[in-house]
């Protein structure tokens, strides 16, 4: 079966001989909720940004549903949705203007987009705020808008960088439910997080990255066995 996301021998250097990511290999299948865990500066964001085509890289390749980020970036971007760790939305647009902009880019029909926006806005309880300027929103509200904008085209691969930061407990639960729903419908979720409890409960696979290299990868159940993810993480990152 073809992987939804396949990272092959990916390396990224910012110059000066230091690698932000070194020989990273991992594979995300349809139905996976994949946690990407590591300390600050371990190389998580570099890897994620390279996957979504934001960062340029020379070594290795990244494939999304068989399309290479290097040679077929547009095909890749049509299949993914990405939420950065600190989504910088256009502050002087209203929420609905911003969602419309994203829907325009993906060419979503007017009726379909209306239905999807209404449904997600209801789920995240922000229907009344859609006509407000984004500049008036809290961090959590902005995060909710970013999540809705990412879901509007029903992506095959959902990539999130620290998605739970700033979300209230209810919104965090909604996001987790959406992630599960997506996986049940044959999509995949790949996200970085520092919240190990969430990763342990939500994900079926995980990778731990340290100093730019993957040090552990595999099934969550097999890797944790009788220990907690926190114990595993501390153990492998201390010893490596």
């Amino acid at each position, binding site marked *: 079966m073809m992987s939804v996301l396949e990272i092959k021998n990916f390396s990224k250097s910012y110059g000066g001989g230091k690698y932000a990511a070194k020989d990273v290999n991992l594979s995300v299948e349809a139905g996976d909720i994949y946690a990407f865990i590591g300390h600050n500066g371990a190389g998580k964001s570099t890897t994620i940004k390279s996957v979504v085509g934001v960062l340029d890289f020379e070594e290795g390749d990244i494939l999304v549903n068989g399309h290479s980020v290097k040679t077929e970036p547009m095909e890749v971007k*049509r299949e993914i949705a990405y939420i950065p760790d600190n989504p910088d939305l*256009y502050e002087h647009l209203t929420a609905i203007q911003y969602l419309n902009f994203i829907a325009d880019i993906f*060419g979503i029909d007017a009726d379909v987009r209306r239905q999807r926006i209404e449904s997600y806005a209801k789920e995240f309880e922000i229907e009344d705020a859609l006509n407000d300027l984004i500049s008036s929103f809290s961090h959590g509200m902005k995060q909710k808008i970013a999540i809705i904008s990412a879901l509007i085209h029903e992506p095959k691969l959902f990539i999130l960088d620290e998605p739970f930061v700033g979300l209230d407990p209810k919104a965090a639960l909604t996001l987790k439910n959406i992630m599960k729903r997506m996986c049940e419908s044959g999509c995949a979720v790949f996200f970085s997080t520092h919240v190990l409890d969430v990763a342990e409960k939500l994900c079926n696979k995980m990778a731990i990255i340290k100093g730019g290299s993957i040090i552990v990868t595999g099934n969550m159940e097999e890797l944790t066995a009788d220990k907690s993810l926190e114990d595993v993480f501390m153990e492998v990152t201390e010893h490596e």
Partner: protein
Amino acid sequence: MNKGRSILLKTFLRAQSAGNIIKYEKDKKKRKKAKSTRIGFIFVYLLVAFYAFFFGLGYGIAGLTDYMPLSAAITCIALSFFMTFFKADGYMFTNKDYDMVMALPISVKDVVSARFLYMYIWNLPMTCVMSFSILAGYIIWAPFNLIKIIIWIVLTPLLPMLPMVLATALSTLFAGVGTKFKYRRVIQVLLTFAFTFVCFTSRYWVEKFFKEDKIDNNMQNIGAAFDKTGKYIFTANWFAKAVNGPSIIYIVLFVAVSIALFEVFSYIVAKFYRQLNTKLTSRVRANKYKEHALKKNSATMAIAYKEFRKFLSSNNYLVNIGFGEVLVIFLCVAFLFVDAKSVISTITSGAPIEPKILIPAVPMIIHFLLGMMSSTCCSYSLEGKSYWILQSCPIDLCDVVNGKVLFQIILATPFAILGNLILSIKLGGNPIEVILCVIVGCVLSIYTATCGMFSNLSHLKLEWENEIEVIKQGAATVIYMLPNMFVNMGLVVGAVFLAKVIDGALVIAIMGVVYALLAFIFYKLSLSKVRKINV
């Protein structure tokens, strides 16, 4: 225009327009501020229109109506080139929305061209105001010809295209060269200033090395001067020929070349855009922290030092604010190594001006360069989303104003002293005039700092996507810069003429007293404004 590009462009424009704030903002104060920003811009455009209209009228009176299209084109092209050159880097690269936009299924060429067109559309009102105001003078003096007027109006929006493409290409090139070095920011800034130096002195070098005939300042030869300039700025020449002809061939040539160059530019930059952005936004971690002795400073000094670090860490901030200081250095070097008469002759296109009569205007000449931009015009707005740091510190916001004003004074005053000293001595000033020039130069530095701060606090903008929005195109900057420039130009001429009636030293002293008073008033107004800020 293709779909991705037009959607992006529409969103960029909407995200920055005051219209959205006026329509959707619930906070009355913010709506009022957006409206006053619009009014401020209209005031500036009216000022430019007034100036350009009389500029055009002057050409009409001198019987040079045939040269008016060329003159309008050259003015708009030069203005567009330099206005773009100093901000293109900020518009094209390292945008806050870069990650979001690049992750969308839009081709890189569309992203590049939408960013360029956004900058282009922002520049259009100024070009149109300038060109149409000269056209008004043209309509008054030239025999009425509707076709010519229509061609002028239709082609004007395309005038900035080529200079903006060139300026952005150069800026991109400098950014690209910078990324090859460890100290990329330093290289980029050096290249920018070196190019500016070449531009401002090109006329001198052409005359020196190619022994070209100097252009006389009499009216008969102004036409020849324009012909000569038109030879180099070919789109200006095509615009003039299209209007004067009127010529279909030149209309087609002008339109086709402008659009083709824009498309070629977008295509080429798109090839390197992601790579360049990656390099510009990447930071290699510095070596391990070494402990230094840490000194204790007052809150005001701490703010001033923070401003200094900010100044050094941003290309856009450094280039735009430090530009006047660099020009003063160029001027001082010119006056030190070339005799005063030759320098004046080169700057004024050979006008027969006796150096000594310029002495009363020396502080204003230096102020024209140093006061063109002030860090205080944007330093408060630049706090942006980090403003909470200052707000939550146990300091009076007046200390923040003091710190930012202090930084501008420390930055500009040494150059003011140097410039006034060298110019007044080289122009043959007596000791009293020299001392007065230096003192008034310092007063003008303080005025620049306080006036800029007042402008910034009057048009405070803490919510921005890209720092260039407040550094270069913010209402505070434009409203400070243009009126000051026009008043300054008037005062240079005024000081020279006034010195024919009263003693030159007295003229300098009077200006010093007036500006000291203004500096004090703006300082007090700034303190009162900052106390009322409620974000």
